């Protein structure tokens, strides 16, 4: 199906750095991605996700460090890398005056398919990505969801073994986002395609990726499976539902003055503690003494949001 792996790892990156004048967009990144893995690069705006993906897809050069993609060096053998990868980036687009079918056919031809092969492949992908009806319409008439599906189809024309996606669902509504997740899982499972994707959404990384690297200002601050990352935060969370939701902020404040690590999150209050079972008595006692009514209570594991916040604030403090 895909090209024969010529390397033990799909992607290997060592000490990757990129400087734009005074801005250091990447400050030394190391990572490796196994064949067939769905790997997520998670980070806020400006973290360096796009810079990293542009280096890996041969669009820009690193200032320092090395990267191999599909066994080929991105600096020395960009053509080899290009043939092995499929790419849908924030920084790429399509000609809005062409139709989906035309774009797919051109893409196929440029990747060396013969005319008829290229046409057949276009039809196949249009069906797979549910674009049959729009196939012969100009792309400028496509909805956001259709554009993203076409982008994905374009990236897959030549059956690459590694797929790079830069924020593939940013700007999509929840329905289209979840539909795209299903497509990505399908591509990953059915063809064994390795996927390297970036995202700003924790739930997306959590739902899709087998491994996640959290990026913050040009550095990877953590890399693990979603469960591993959650486990890393050695804390429990006590979630309280106040009887009067509008009082949540005020209650969190009272708890903080009493020495608890509490935050109000919309209508509920979250109290972080090394051991939830031990602290719960103290929390309830305090609330009772202030005659605050509680409608519900849970002790839970931290969410990825918690991990993310903890990690990124920790690196703020570091420097």
């Amino acid at each position, binding site marked *: 199906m895909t*090209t024969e792996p010529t390397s033990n790892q799909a992607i290997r990156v060592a000490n990757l750095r990129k400087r734009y004048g005074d801005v250091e967009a990447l400050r030394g990144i190391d990572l490796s991605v196994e064949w067939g893995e769905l790997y997520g690069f998670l980070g806020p705006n400006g973290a360096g996700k796009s810079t990293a993906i542009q280096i890996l*897809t*041969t*669009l*820009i*050069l690193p200032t320092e460090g090395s990267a191999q993609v599909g066994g080929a060096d991105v600096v020395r053998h*960009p*053509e*080899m890398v*290009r*043939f*092995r990868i499929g*790419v849908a*980036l924030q*920084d*790429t*687009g*399509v*000609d*809005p*005056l*062409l139709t989906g079918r*035309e774009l797919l056919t*051109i*893409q196929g*031809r*440029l*990747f*060396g*398919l013969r005319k008829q092969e290229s046409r057949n492949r276009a039809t196949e992908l249009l069906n797979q990505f549910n674009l049959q009806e729009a196939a012969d319409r*100009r792309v400028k008439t496509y909805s956001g969801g259709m554009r993203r599906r076409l982008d994905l189809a*374009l990236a897959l024309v030549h059956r690459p073994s590694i797929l790079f996606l830069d924020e593939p669902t940013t700007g999509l509504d929840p329905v289209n986002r979840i539909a795209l997740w299903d497509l990505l899982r399908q591509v990953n499972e059915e063809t064994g395609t390795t996927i390297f994707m970036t995202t700003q959404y924790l739930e997306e990384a959590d739902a899709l990726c087998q491994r996640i690297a959290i990026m913050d200002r040009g550095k990877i601050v953590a890399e693990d499976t979603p469960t591993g990352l959650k486990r890393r935060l050695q804390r429990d969370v006590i979630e309280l539902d106040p009887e009067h939701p509008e009082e949540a902020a005020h209650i969190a404040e009272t708890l903080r003055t009493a020495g608890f690590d509490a935050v109000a999150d919309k209508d509920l209050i979250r109290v972080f503690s090394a051991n939830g079972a031990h602290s719960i008595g103290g929390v309830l006692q305090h609330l009772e003494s202030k005659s605050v009514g509680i409608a519900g209570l849970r002790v839970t594991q931290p969410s990825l949001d918690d991990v993310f916040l903890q990690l990124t604030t920790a690196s703020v403090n570091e420097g």
Partner: protein
Amino acid sequence: MTVVMNAIGPTYRRSFWRDLFVLTGRSIKVTWRLPFAVIPNLAISLFFLLVYQGGLSGISALPAFGGAHYLNFIVPVAVVSGAVGGAGGSGQALIRDLESRYFTKLRLTPASPTAFVLAPMIAGMLQLIVQTILILVVAAAMGLSVPTGFVGLLVVVLLAAGWGLAFAGYAVAIALRSGNSQTAQAATFVFFPLLFLSDTFVPLSLIGAAWLKVAARINPTTYVFGAMREVLMYGWKSRPILEGILAIVILSAITLGWAVFTARRTLRRK
């Protein structure tokens, strides 16, 4: 030019000509879908032909015209202005690709980068040739008769294509440099001095202002007009024809060299 790249994959064949063919086909398709990028330019060319022929044709009785019709004199103006517009279109096409970022998508394919800069230029040249033929057909309908016959008209088309190529090189270089349509649009305004600081409407000998005479002598367009007018009005005298060809060759070498240089710089990874 067909090399099998085994290191890449069993089926991939690198072929510059395939890439060029595919991308040129695409550029032509897009030109066809943007008729309003073509029609105004063609309209202006025909305007030159109809209005100046209508208004000034009487002056060809002057001895400076050597007995030829004014229509034969003004046809090159329509052709050259059409050629410049058609060639400018190739720069506009590249800018559309830069702005839509389809250009970046193309860069991520193994296709030859030369092909995706050259393709819009070839499409522009084809557009220009069709336009030139159309202008000549209209002129023929207006009664154009040429001493050098069909071959003479063919030479006019080739001169127009050569001139267009020189201008396309300039338009493409500006497009790649600026990457935005305003700048490129502004840059095509050199078209005006090129077209009008010349013996555009009357022979050089009838131009009164000394400065305009000097400008016309420096302006390479004058020599292209000269070559076209030679075959349209008189015959096969080699000197004006060679001067026209020389002007085209020199200018093309400069602008195409600049385009290649700019393309290399734009496409180099940073």
